[in-house]
Every structure is written in structure tokens, then in C-alpha cells.
């Protein structure tokens, strides 16, 4: 009988039962995964981004498979905060009562829209443990990466939203200027950071001469981006003192372990949720096995243990 490892971590004042989180946009509203495992085994879930009013998102085709991953051009399709709460609020309240942190992601085309969505969440989602500001979606023309790709733009959104809630604010960052933008977000009052969002990328049909998705560019995710994401997470962990959630191409416990070693307090499973719907719990078990193999009794002993 192996000694069990304590997997609990503190993330911006939220006690997570383990570091396993899910990347927004790959996990629906969480209940889509109940057929595959008991979602309350996870430390946290991050929901699909929601805006103040429903968004239809981008036209078809919205995805293309590429080497080592996929491109998506979804464009934050969502039923709005009210729609999300009406559809999934009861389920999410139950999930939160079982000790899994529910993180609601906030989307907007402008500072005002982020504020409107956050105000609605603050009122309608008492079960939410934290809010994540998505300032890095590469698939919308306004807002998202269009606002979060500069330190000034990121500061503006976070600074405007900060007074609207006492709950932790997480900022979902894209793969650009990560140290500068991380510092800006923290200066504006962010309690935690999560990165990376998908990488803006292209794939072209060489016979039709057109993009394989509806827009010229789309967000690249999957195992191919993992080494880039680890590097960026390491840089951000070195730049700021708030907790970081590492995201990008995690397919197994070893991939997740690299993020913890560079200092991330949590990790999010993204595209792998589509490949193996039971991925997050499998990776949790693999992470525990790894911790045992390292001879520790507490996963926190391995966070930031990277030597350079």
C-alpha cells in the first residue's frame, strides 16, 4: 500500500482539492462530462466563456485538424450569462457544494461588455469561486486578444472589472508579451493568471486557396503547443507572485508535472478533453503516481522545484 499524497493546493485563496482544472471552451458547462466520470473529483472547472448577451460565434467551418493538434474558430459562442445560469446553474451549485471550485469565464467585446457580464455573474452565480477574464481569445474581431495583447489593454480591462467583485479575478492570457502583460494584470488587481490561450495560426486548403476554417486565422491547441506553453508559464511564474494555472497541450500526467515544476499551482486540461473525455481524472491519477515516484507526501513540495 503506497502512502497517499496530499494533492490539495491553495490557488488565490481558494482551497483546491487537487491542481486539476479544465480549460475554458473545452469543457462546456462541465455537466457534459458527467457521463464519463464524477466531475467533483476535479479541483476546479473553468466554464465556457459567457458574455452579457448571447453570442452566435463564427460561421462554419469552425475547426480543422492539424499536425499535433487542432485549429478552432468558434468565436465564443455562448448563451449569455443568464442563459448559462438558467441552463446549468443548479448543476453548478451542486458541483460547488461538493468542493470543486467553479470558475466562470467572462467574455466581452469592450471594457463595458466585460463589466456588464461580470456584474451579471456576480449577481446570478453565488456558487462561483472565482471569475476568469478572457482577454486572449484569438477568434473574435473585438475584445479578447484584440484587447489583451498589450500591457495597457490588459490593465484597462482588469482595472475596470476589479471593483465589481470581491471574489478572485483570474486573467486568461494569450501567448504574447507574457511577462509584461502578467505584471500589468497583477498591478490592476488580478489575483491569479492562467496561460496560455490558443496560438493564432493558419491552415490553408491548397486546392481551393482558402482557409480551412471560416476566418483566415484560428486558435491552435493540442500537444504540439505544450513546450511553448511551459516556457511561457515559467516566465510568468518568475515575473509575478500571484498563482499561475498552466495550460497548453497537456495529454498526460507528465505534461502536467512540467507545469507544476516551473511553478504553476494548478493546471488546466484543454483539447485532450475532446480526445479522451475522461482525460482530467486520468491525468490526476498519473500526477499522483508521479508525486509518489518523486518521494513526496505533498504535491506542493514539487511546485516550483524546477532547477536551472
Amino acid at each position, binding site marked *: 500500500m503506497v502512502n497517499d499524497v496530499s494533492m490539495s493546493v491553495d490557488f488565490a485563496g481558494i482551497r483546491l482539492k487537487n491542481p486539476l482544472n479544465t480549460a475554458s*471552451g*473545452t*469543457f*462546456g*458547462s462541465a*455537466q*457534459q*462530462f458527467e*457521463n*464519463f466520470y464524477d466531475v467533483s473529483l476535479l479541483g476546479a472547472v473553468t466554464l*465556457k466563456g459567457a458574455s452579457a448577451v448571447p453570442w*452566435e*460565434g463564427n460561421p*462554419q*467551418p*469552425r*475547426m*480543422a*485538424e492539424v*499536425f*499535433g*493538434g*487542432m485549429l*478552432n474558430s*468558434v468565436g465564443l*459562442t455562448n*448563451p449569455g450569462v443568464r442563459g448559462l445560469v438558467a*441552463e*446549468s446553474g443548479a448543476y453548478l451549485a451542486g458541483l460547488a457544494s461538493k468542493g470543486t471550485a467553479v470558475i466562470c469565464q467572462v467574455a466581452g467585446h469592450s471594457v463595458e461588455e466585460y463589466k456588464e457580464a461580470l456584474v451579471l455573474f456576480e449577481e446570478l452565480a453565488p456558487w462561483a469561486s472565482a471569475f476568469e477574464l478572457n482577454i486572449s481569445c484569438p477568434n473574435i474581431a473585438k475584445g479578447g486578444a484584440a484587447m489583451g495583447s498589450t500591457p495597457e489593454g490588459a490593465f484597462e480591462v482588469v482595472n475596470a472589472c476589479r471593483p465589481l467583485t470581491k471574489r478572485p479575478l483570474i486573467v486568461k492570457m494569450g501567448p504574447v508579451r507574457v511577462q509584461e502583460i502578467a505584471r500589468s494584470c497583477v498591478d490592476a488587481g488580478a489575483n491569479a493568471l492562467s496561460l496560455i490561450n490558443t496560438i493564432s495560426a493558419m491552415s490553408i486548403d491548397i486546392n481551393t486557396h482558402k482557409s480551412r476554417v471560416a476566418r483566415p486565422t484560428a486558435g491552435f491547441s*493540442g*500537444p*504540439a503547443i505544450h513546450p511553448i506553453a511551459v516556457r511561457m508559464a515559467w516566465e510568468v511564474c518568475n515575473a509575478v507572485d500571484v498563482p499561475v494555472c498552466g495550460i497548453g497541450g497537456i*495529454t498526460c500526467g507528465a505534461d502536467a508535472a512540467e507545469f507544476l515544476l516551473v511553478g504553476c499551482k494548478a493546471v488546466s486540461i484543454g*483539447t485532450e*478533453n*475532446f*480526445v*479522451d*473525455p*475522461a482525460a482530467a481524472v486520468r491525468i490526476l491519477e498519473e500526477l499522483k503516481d508521479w508525486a509518489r515516484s518523486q518521494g513526496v507526501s505533498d504535491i506542493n513540495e514539487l511546485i516550483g522545484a524546477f532547477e536551472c
Partner: protein
Amino acid sequence: MTTLSSAHKYACSVLVNEPLAQDIWRMRFSCPELAQSMRPGQFFNLAVPGDPSNILRLPFSWSVSDPREGWVEFAYLLVGEGTRRMTTMIPGTASDLVGPAGNGWYIPQNTQHALVVGGGSGVVPLVALVHELTQHGVSCDFVEGAATQNRVIYEDAITHYGAHFYLSTDDGSRGVHGFSTQISQDLLASSAAYDVVYTCGPSPMMRAIAAQAHEARIPCQVSMEKLMACGFGACTTCLVDTKNGRKTCCTDGPVFDGEEVLW
């Protein structure tokens, strides 16, 4: 409104995998849970082993199954790298799938006579439908449209179930020279009083069939195909534009009311 999927993850094992027609293969695999729970028109998302750089599952609908023996069969067109890799899944190959996914065909009450029109590999989910219809005593006219005579699939099964079989080929090598829509137009114009029309195939074909059914004032069900990643409502990539807004092909469909789809 979010439609929750009935899909689970199940292990499966290949029993038969062989050419069925030109560029079309047939795979039969063991998966008792799926064989016992899947309805005609539903689909599954299959993991295809052998290439870690190609990560996504491939979605397929099924043609024939045996719940007692626990197997499911489908046919697949070789269209890309993934389906060509599938031909290397020899009997005994273990994999897993996510299913049963989607809503499946709907048989309206008091249906007595159905027109079923399949194009290319779109015939596959209609084979299972015809089996169910004929078991319920529904008389079926089945129109298959194939590119050429070497691509005709499941003719034996469809006639064995008792459906009247009509064939068109694009090149005229067998049956009516032209498209399935010409045969369906003639059948709808004849005295046959259909209660329902079912179709699956290329989008222009389904659009034409839906228009013919609309003209004849007969309800029509179409099975849509969209690129998708997960197959159970999480990725929201597989949207279908409808008169009632954008719907998710994998959970709200793949079967839609032909009147509802914005082609």
C-alpha cells in the same frame, strides 16, 4: 438550450475490416454496450490508433448491429489520412469510442410508407433505419445514389429487409444515369402516399430532397454532417444554422427536420 449527450466511453475491438466497394471499407467491431444502446441514426466517435500527431477521433454512423452478439458494423469512405489509417486496424485491434451520440431518426406514429434516399456513404445510417422501419411493418422505398456501380453498398441488406430498391449512378454504369434526386422526384410525383421522407448524403442532395418533400407536403428528416472534435456537446464546433438559431450537430442532431435547416 444545451442538449445533454447520452454518449459514454467504451472499449471496442475490431472483428472484421475489409473492402466493401471501391474506396469504401466495412468495419465490424465488438462493443456490447454500444450494440445494446445505440439507435438508428445515432453515431459514435472512434479513436483511430497509430499516429500520435493526429489526435482527434473520427465520427461514424452505423449500418448493422447485433445486440445479442454485441457487435456493430459501419462502412467508411476513404477520404483522408485518418480513414486510410483505419484500413490498417486488423481484427483484434483494440480501441475505444464515445457513443451513442446524437438523437437518431424519429419514426412518427402511424407511419405506413416511407421514402428513404441515401447518397454515397450517407447510405450507412439509413440501413439501420430501414431495418427498424420494416420491423415495424413500414413499407419502404429506398433510393441509393452512387458515383458508379462499384460504389453501390448495402443493396443486399436493404432488399433483404424488404425495401423496394432503386438505384442511380452518376456515370450511368448501373441503374438510372444521374442523381438519386431524379428518382425521388418521380416517386414523390407518383401515386405513392409517403408519410415521411428520410435522407442522408451530400448537402446539395439533401437540400434537394428536403425541397421535394416540402413541395409534396411530406415531413422530411435529414442527417447532417459537420466537422467536429468531441461529439458530445463540449467543443461547439459542429454548428448547424437553422430557422431556430444555431444548433449543435452532435447533440441537437445529427438528424434535423428538413424544414428547419438553413442550407
